[in-house]
């Protein structure tokens, strides 16, 4: 069993944290995980992505060469994954932030207003948590209990409950995406 995931966006959207939490939840589920990151020289703005590889065996190359799931939160990130090779890959993009009408996207691409939904649920900074939920439910390898525990440990009590709800929303969205395939 081996899964490759990419979270991509621009600096400040929390995509690297999403990858870290996914990896932590995978390790807490008894699996092996690796996470790499690519970002610009400054803390805000610029293309940012994180690759997460999850496996039940040793992970050699820690970059996602043939991702199973990609979540993109910015157009700058989407354009890099238009030519993705893997025929079974799911690319979930933030349809609230990205106008995808100018691209010819096949059925592997699914839009969902990720950031907008997170804001409506009470957190302007939790698009990454919703993304995490989508990916986790697409993979089916991560223990839901470990996922929620990892999330609870990562955030302050103030935001913990809202984020738990947003994570659940992400899981539901992920399940819908899978069932519609």
């Amino acid at each position: 069993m081996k899964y490759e995931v990419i979270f991509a966006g621009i600096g400040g959207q929390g995509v690297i944290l999403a990858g870290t939490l996914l990896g932590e939840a995978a390790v807490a589920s008894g699996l092996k995980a690796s996470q790499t990151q690519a970002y610009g020289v400054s803390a805000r703005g610029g293309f940012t992505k994180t690759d997460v590889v999850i496996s039940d065996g040793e992970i050699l190359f820690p970059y996602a060469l043939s991702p199973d799931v990609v979540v993109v939160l910015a157009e700058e990130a989407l354009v890099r994954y238009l030519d993705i090779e893997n025929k079974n890959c799911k690319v979930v993009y933030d349809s609230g932030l990205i106008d995808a009408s100018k691209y010819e996207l096949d059925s592997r691409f699914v839009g969902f207003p990720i950031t907008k939904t997170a804001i409506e649920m009470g957190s302007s900074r939790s698009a990454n948590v919703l993304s995490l939920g989508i990916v986790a439910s697409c993979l089916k390898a991560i223990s839901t209990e470990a996922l929620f525990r990892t999330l609870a440990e990562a955030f302050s009590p103030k935001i913990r409950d809202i984020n738990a709800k947003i994570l659940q929303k992400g899981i539901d969205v992920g399940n819908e995406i899978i069932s519609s395939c």
Partner: protein
Amino acid sequence: MKKKVRFMLGNEAIVEGALLAGATFFAGYPITPSSEVAERASRKLPQIGGCYLQMEDEIASIAAIIGASIGGAKAFTATSGPGFSLMQENIGLAIMAEVPCVIVNVQRSGPSTGLATRPAQADIMQARWGRHGDHSVIALSPATVQECFDLMVQAFNMAEKYRCPVLFMADETVGHLRENCVLRSRDEVEIVNRKRPPEGLEEYFPYKADDDLVPPMVTPGSDYLTRFHSSTHNEKGLPTSSPQEARKLIKRLYDKIEKNKDDIIMYREFDVTKCEYLVICFGGAVRAARQAAIEAREEGLSVGVLQLQTVWPFPAEYISEVSKGKRGIIVPEMNMGQIIGEVRKAVPDKIPVLGANRYDGEPLTPKEIIQVLGEVVSL
């Protein structure tokens, strides 16, 4: 007790390894992509009564860890290319004055400020030859987060054992990699501490070596007066211009590492002896190489991987031996080809040695190594 398997960043594991080895002092100047080492050290060291010092530059940082080690602490610093360049003169001081310490270089793409957040392995010859003057040096290179932890313990052990700086040549792909890491406990690993002189000596000679070529070391405030010197010195630590004394010192400093190669050199073998094609690499490139070897085997090629955990001193004799009878050698590096020169010197002339190189700030991929493998096969 927190769970022992962590999903940990390479740079953080470096600090955890240092702490297990007994480090109590860090001095540094933050620089991408090594800053997480400084950040974690600044959080952890004060908790155990140790010290984190943020110095005015990298020159001061290496100077301060040399001072702290002389003062009796196990000390380390962390930097990347630009800072590593600034540290060179005082790495020479640590070599000459025989001060144990560990210098972490999380390599990034250069030269100069280069691509600050992107990986490279292009400082590996600088690690060997960055200082002026004749000397040998120890450099280790981790390929996994677990090795960031485990090899840091070894780095400190070697620094203490041989009274010398040890260069820890990580790179961005490993420093910024998160993966499973087991934090070992004190009783699981051997911790080496610097050798002390026997009590009751009539006179202590600060640079008089034992048979192992390493002089015992004294902490200020103990029974003997310490003496450390950056200039060519005699056994008393007094400067000398005598050619005999100079030769004796330079030879001993060189030999204490080169004659202990068997102890210092560490490597990992993946199908090395039975393979037809051998990939020799270190650090971040190892991951791509091992993946490439698996994929090539699926295509019916017999490929092994030799991972150099110790890059300096270079295991030339071993490589010379193990490469006999191979049909080709591939040396993948995230640089224009540095270690390949050492491999070529070691490998018998008739065996082709090809590099797989990347120097655009992107990590090497298995595909690129397989491509070069194809070239070697078709030779």
